[in-house]
Structure formats: structure tokens, C-alpha cells
């Protein structure tokens, strides 16, 4: 979603300021540097500073387009597509002249994005695969970025310059992989919204692939080229749509997906049965009770099947930086009766929902059918009793705390949308 908004903004920018950007790009570069610096600063500050006022929250939300990388992705996408549009077409005519400038803007913001999000990985020495891919991406970008500046370009042999710029294909491919590396794990876990993101990126990148191919193939047959491009884009869209419907249907069947609970301010809930209460869960005169016990999402006996990102290391002490990035994160902990897995949803930097998706599988102590429905019953009883809160350690079950803690560790460094 952020990607889409960013892309629209970039197109508007090119429409309105295209000429100025081409002739006098410097103020735009300076603006980008300022925005990048602001985004980095915001990421480095503790989250609570922004809960004070609407203005600050807006600033943070806006800058997240940069720190999260959406704006970067949008910029480079337009840059790449510019070279895939039919030559002489309106789209090409608008975008080609500012291609270099857009690349530079993208590069500046990319560095901002990289530092803003990368710093938490470095701080924690969390050198995951995704982190390594990101580093690679940044490395490939450097020569492209540097040679985009006219000053540098003029000093180079045009042929060598063109050859070097071919790295852009590798760069764009790596960008796709980079994005998938962060989105796929969550999409696979059935977190709603992420599957949709994956399909959206799929459409963008694969469409580009076809458009670029047809541009080369039909080099001199513009009409054929355009036709082929349009058909392929439509086809990719249809495939992606079909794919996302299939995934959604599959998730609904397995009850694997959990809703992005539109809390609109409700207290954090521990699981709401997906279909069950229907209106009940939100309809209590606005007073939303806190929950003593946990309730599971489905009667799924294969609850243990949920793809986990692996058992996390669990520490008893709380994390000192509690800067949580919006999203849903998974964590596991060892409970009284076995391993427990939770999805923790962060909204506006705060926990908005905790959901148990994996239950202790020791049948002696925990009967998924019986005890799970018992938990559901308790949840309903609490809501119906119009209780405001429950005294007596709600999340004290050690496994649950550990699981939530593990999920929150991921939330500290999770890639935002």
C-alpha cells in the first residue's frame, strides 16, 4: 500500500515538476538528503517521543515511507520502467528525461532507508540472510549511484558507462529478492495483508520483466511491442489475482489467517475467534474488557503446523529499546505444558493484539479441542459480563510471556511494510 502511494506521488512529482527536476535538480537532491536524515533520526529515537502529539505522529508516519523503503522502491521502479516503455510513447517521454535525477533521488533515499532500518540489525549484531542481501543491494547500488551524476558521467566513455549501468538489472532483481526476503516469511505464516503485498510486488516486478523483454524483442515494431506489453501486464495481473484468491481461500479453509483486527482503540485482545462472535467481540458499548485467559483461533488440530520462524532465544529481562515497528510478529516460548506460539500485532508502535497460533502439543495436558473451546468460552463470558479488567496475572503463563517476548524482539527490528 505504501508502495502504491509512493509511486503515485512520484508520478505526480514528475508530471508537475519534471522540467524543474531535469534542469535544476540540486534543490530536490538537497530535499532528499534532508528527508533521509530526518527518517534516520526518527528511527533512532525512542518511540514514545512521538505519542505526544498528532503533528509528531504525522511526521513519523510520513517519514516511514522513506525509512521503510516504499519511496525508494517506487523511485527505482519508475526508473526501470522508463527504460521499458515504448520509445517515444508519452510515458517514455515523461520519464526518460528525468531518469538520472530520479535514480539519484532514489539512491539518496536508499541510503537513508538502509541506515534507518539497518542500524537496529547492526546494533544487535543480527546478521540474518535478509541483512546480508540488503548489504549486497547497497553495494551494487553504489557504482550505479555514483555514475548517475552528470559530472561523473561526462568523464566516462559512453560505452563503458552504458555497460556499467547494465548493473541496474541486477540491482532491480536484487531489490525484488530483498523485498521478498522480508515479506515472504510473514506471508507464509498466513498473516493477512502480507500475501497481498507479495502478489503486488510480484505484479510490479514480473510485469517489468515482460515489458523490458518485449521492448528488446520488438525493437522496431512499436505497435507490436505495446500490444505485447499490455497483454503480458494484464496476464500477470490476472495470475496474481488468481493466486491471491487461491491463497486467501486456502487460509480461510485452514483458518490459518488472522484478521488485522481493526481495533479502533480497543484494548489488546488475546485472540478473537475468526468467525464466531461476529459482532459480539466489538459490540460491548465500547468498553472492551481485558482478557484473563487466552483463546485460540481455530479448531485446527494441526495447529502445530503453522510455519514458525524457528524457536527464538528467550531472555528473562525485557528489551531495553522497545521501539516496535508496526506489523505482526511471531514468537515461541516454552509453556507449562509445552511449546506455545503467538502472533503479536503492533499498531502505532504498540501491542494491539496477541494471538496464540501454536499450542502445546502434549495431549496429556492440553486438549486442543476441549481446552481451546474452553478458552473461547471464557473470552465470551468475560465480554458478556461487562468486565473492565481481570485481576490475577493475565499473561503470567511463562510460555506465553516468553513467546510474546520473542515476538517483540522481532518487532524491534522488523522491516516495516
Amino acid at each position, binding site marked *: 500500500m505504501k508502495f502504491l502511494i509512493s509511486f503515485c506521488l512520484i*508520478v505526480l512529482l514528475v508530471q508537475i515538476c519534471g522540467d524543474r527536476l531535469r534542469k535544476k535538480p540540486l534543490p530536490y537532491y538537497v530535499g532528499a538528503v534532508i528527508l533521509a536524515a530526518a527518517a534516520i533520526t526518527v528511527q533512532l529515537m525512542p518511540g514514545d517521543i512521538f505519542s505526544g502529539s498528532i503533528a509528531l505522529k504525522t511526521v513519523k508516519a510520513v517519514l516511514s515511507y522513506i525509512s521503510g523503503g516504499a519511496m525508494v522502491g517506487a523511485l527505482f521502479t519508475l526508473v526501470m520502467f522508463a527504460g521499458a516503455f515504448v520509445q517515444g510513447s508519452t510515458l517514455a517521454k515523461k520519464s526518460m528525461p528525468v531518469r538520472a535525477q530520479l535514480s539519484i533521488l532514489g539512491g539518496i533515499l536508499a541510503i537513508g532507508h538502509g541506515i534507518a532500518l539497518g542500524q537496529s540489525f547492526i546494533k544487535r549484531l543480527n546478521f540474518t540472510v535478509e541483512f546480508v542481501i540488503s548489504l549486497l543491494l547497497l553495494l551494487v547500488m553504489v557504482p550505479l549511484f555514483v555514475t548517475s551524476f552528470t559530472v561523473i558521467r561526462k568523464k566516462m566513455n559512453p560505452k563503458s558507462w552504458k555497460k556499467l549501468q547494465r548493473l541496474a538489472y541486477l540491482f532491480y532483481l536484487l531489490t525484488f529478492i530483498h523485498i521478498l526476503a522480508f515479506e515472504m516469511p510473514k506471508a507464509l505464516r498466513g498473516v493477512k495483508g502480507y500475501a497481498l503485498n507479495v502478489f503486488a510486488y510480484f505484479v510490479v516486478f514480473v510485469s517489468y520483466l515482460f515489458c523490458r523483454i518485449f521492448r528488446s524483442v520488438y525493437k522496431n515494431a512499436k505497435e507490436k511491442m505495446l500490444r505485447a506489453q499490455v497483454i503480458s501486464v494484464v496476464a500477470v495481473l490476472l495470475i496474481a489475482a488468481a493466486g491471491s484468491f487461491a491463497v486467501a481461500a486456502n487460509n480461510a479453509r485452514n483458518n490459518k489467517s488472522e484478521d488485522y483486527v481493526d481495533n479502533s482503540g480497543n484494548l489488546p485482545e488475546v485472540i478473537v475467534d475468526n468467525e464466531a462472535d461476529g459482532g459480539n467481540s466489538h459490540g460491548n458499548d465500547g468498553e472492551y474488557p481485558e482478557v484473563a485467559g487466552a483463546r485460540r483461533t481455530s479448531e485446527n488440530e494441526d495447529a502445530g503446523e503453522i510455519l514458525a520462524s524457528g524457536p527464538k532465544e528467550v531472555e528473562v529481562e525485557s528489551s531495553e529499546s522497545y521501539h516496535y515497528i508496526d506489523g505482526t510478529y511471531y514468537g515461541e516460548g516454552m509453556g507449562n505444558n509445552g511449546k506455545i506460539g503467538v502472533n503479536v500485532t503492533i499498531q*502505532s508502535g504498540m501491542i494491539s493484539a496477541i494471538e496464540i497460533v501454536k499450542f502445546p502439543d502434549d495431549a496429556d495436558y492440553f486438549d486442543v479441542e476441549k481446552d481451546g473451546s474452553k478458552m473461547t468460552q471464557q473470552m465470551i463470558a468475560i465480554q458478556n459480563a461487562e468486565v473492565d479488567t481481570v485481576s490475577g496475572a493475565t*499473561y503470567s503463563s511463562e510460555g506465553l510471556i516468553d513467546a510474546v517476548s520473542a515476538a517483540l524482539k522481532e518487532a524491534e527490528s522488523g522491516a516495516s511494510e
Partner: protein
Amino acid sequence: MSFSFKRIRRNIKHKTMAGMALILSVAILSGCGKGSFQFPKVVDGGAVGEEIMHVSTIFAMDTVMDIQVYGGEEAEGLLADADNQIRTLEKELSVTDENSEIAGLNAAGSAELSKEPAQIMKEALMYCDSTDGALDITIYPVLRAWGFTTGEYQVPGDEEIAGLLENVDYRSVKLEEADADGSDDQAAALCTIPEGMQVDLGSVTKGYTSRKLAQYFRDNGVTSALINLGGNVECVGNKPNGSKWNVAVKSPFKDSDSGILGVIQASDEAIITSGGYERYFEENGETYWHIIDPSTGKPARNGLISVTIIGKDGLMCDALSTALFVKGRDGAIDYYRKYSAASTDSSSVANDKTANAADAAKQESSFDMILVTTEGDVYITPGASERFSLSSEYHDLSLHVLD
């Protein structure tokens, strides 16, 4: 098919602008639904600026903490500040954070404590004393031996326990208060413990925190707030609509359908429940829970499965919920009669026109309680019986009102 570029070009500029603007607005609007532009959380639903319930949820002190404050814009700032206060306290007191004052004390055997830790220590020791050691803040090594601090549960041998118990004695904790000069920066007290002893203020920290936050909210004009720190409840005033808060007490029974023992109506007080069901493990058919009896070094099995303390002072409620669980039913009732019963008689307080400091202090120390025994009997003090009702699931439990 033939495409005429000329025709398209004529309209493209306007169409693009309109199209992009449209997509943008749709995207932003749908983004709102997903919460990407979410601002202050609202329970009662209202425009910003109106008085609404602001909510904050954080994970601290090893549990989930939920705070609701009713108010206008400023409530958000209060919540942010509250979060900070929780973090600060956690940093000062956490026994597992090696940079905390308590960890420093445990490592070195002596430490200068700043104002708050010193205050908490002092009050905790007071309760250790008044409960004759049923609460003992030096029990930590024993807790660790059972694995409750790491999750690696095990049953320690009797010799091991006996050895550890030699270093369990709150009376050996020496707290020397410095000359009070009002400054927050100076150390407020010097604390010394013998070698091998480890102090943990975990049994009172959440109670202190809720007390502090409630007072902070009151000082800032809040008349309605609800705090739940991992199950420790404290409320400020009444609900926004004027009625008392409905605070449920968690059922200690494993097979509970509703999960609720009953509901108490609360106003401007703390309600803290302790029970073995919170943290336990099973081995060889026996259940071992985290509330240790300092006299035996083993989980307290003195007939109670749940103790709820209701009172004005969060720290007291926290301390007593543990201590009275250890004391058992009779010990708890004795303690209540000694420290609280005298001033709980509301009529005597209301009619006493010459309320003096002693009475005021007594009222501060007065509390109500709800005990649940292993047999399933419920004991409740008169001050709470009027405003407590058992949930329908337990309507036939025998409820004894103490006199």
C-alpha cells in the same frame, strides 16, 4: 488494433493527474482502515480533543501492561510519561538486568540506593516484618533453584534447599537512610546484605509502580483511569460514566468455564490477586508453583489457592497478596484482624469527627481480601462483601464473610 499516440497524448496529462490523485486517496483511505495512520486509540469513539479513553500497552517487567486514561489530548502525553516511568523503574530494580541498582547490590553485597528503590526496599522490609517473614525479599536464590526465573523447572533436593535457606532472612538486610535533603540525585540509602544473600523486589515492584502511576495521573487531573500491570489492577476514580470499575478476579480453578471467580466493584484502589495457578510446573504428578514459603523453601501449601487484596496502597496489596498466600487461611485472617479490621468498620471512621494521624495511618493500612481455599471455600472481608459477586459459574460456592 491500432493505437494513436496523438489522441492519447492530448488527454494523458489530465488523466494521469486525476488517476493518480484518485488512486492516492483510495490508497490512503484503505490504509487508514489497516491502522497505518492510526492516531490515539479510542474506546468510546470520539473526535480528537474530546475526552476519550486513551490506551497504552507495553511489555515490561516480564509481562504485558495495560493502561487506560480518560481525558483529552494531554492524556497521550501522560501515557507516554507513564511508559517511561515504568521503564525507569524496571531499569533500577530488575534483578536480571546487571545494570540495575538491585543487581549491583546483589553482586557487591552493598550498594547505594536512590530514592525510589530505597523507599520500595524500606516498605517491603516492613511487610516482611509484619508478616513474620511470610514475605521475604531474600528468597530469590531459592526461586532460582526451582527454575522459576529461567523456565528450566526442576525440584531441588532437600539438602540444596536447606543450604540456600541459610541465606534467606530479610532481617539481615540493613538499610541505612541518608540524611534527607530532598535531592533526587543523591543516594537515599545505603543497603548492605551478607555474602550469599540475594535480594529481589519483584514481589512488590508492580504494586509500587501502579501506586506511583495512579498518583501521577491524579496529580495531573485525571479522574478516571484503569491500570493493569500483568494482572495487578489499580484504578483511579470511577469509570467515565460515574459507575465503579468492574474488576473480575481470575478463577484459580483449572477447569473454570468463564475464567472468572467473581467481580468486585472498585473505585480509587488497587486489586491484586496471587495464586499458584499463575506460574507452576508439574513433575511426577505433583504441582509446584512459584509462591515459595520462606520457612520451608518449597511452594507454599497452606490451604490457599488464591488471595486477592483490595486496598488504597498498591505496594501493600502486592506484598500481602504473596505473604497471606504463604500464611494460609488462618494466618491471613489473623493478620487481617490485627492490621486491618480495626479501621475497616466504615461507620466508626465516618462518625469519628476527631480523625487524628493515627487513624489516618490505620486507614491507609486497612485492606480487604478474598481468599479461596483448596477446598473451594471463599472467604471475604465485610468491606468487600457488599461489592463482590460470584460469577454464575461459582454461584454455589460457600462464601464466608469474615466478621
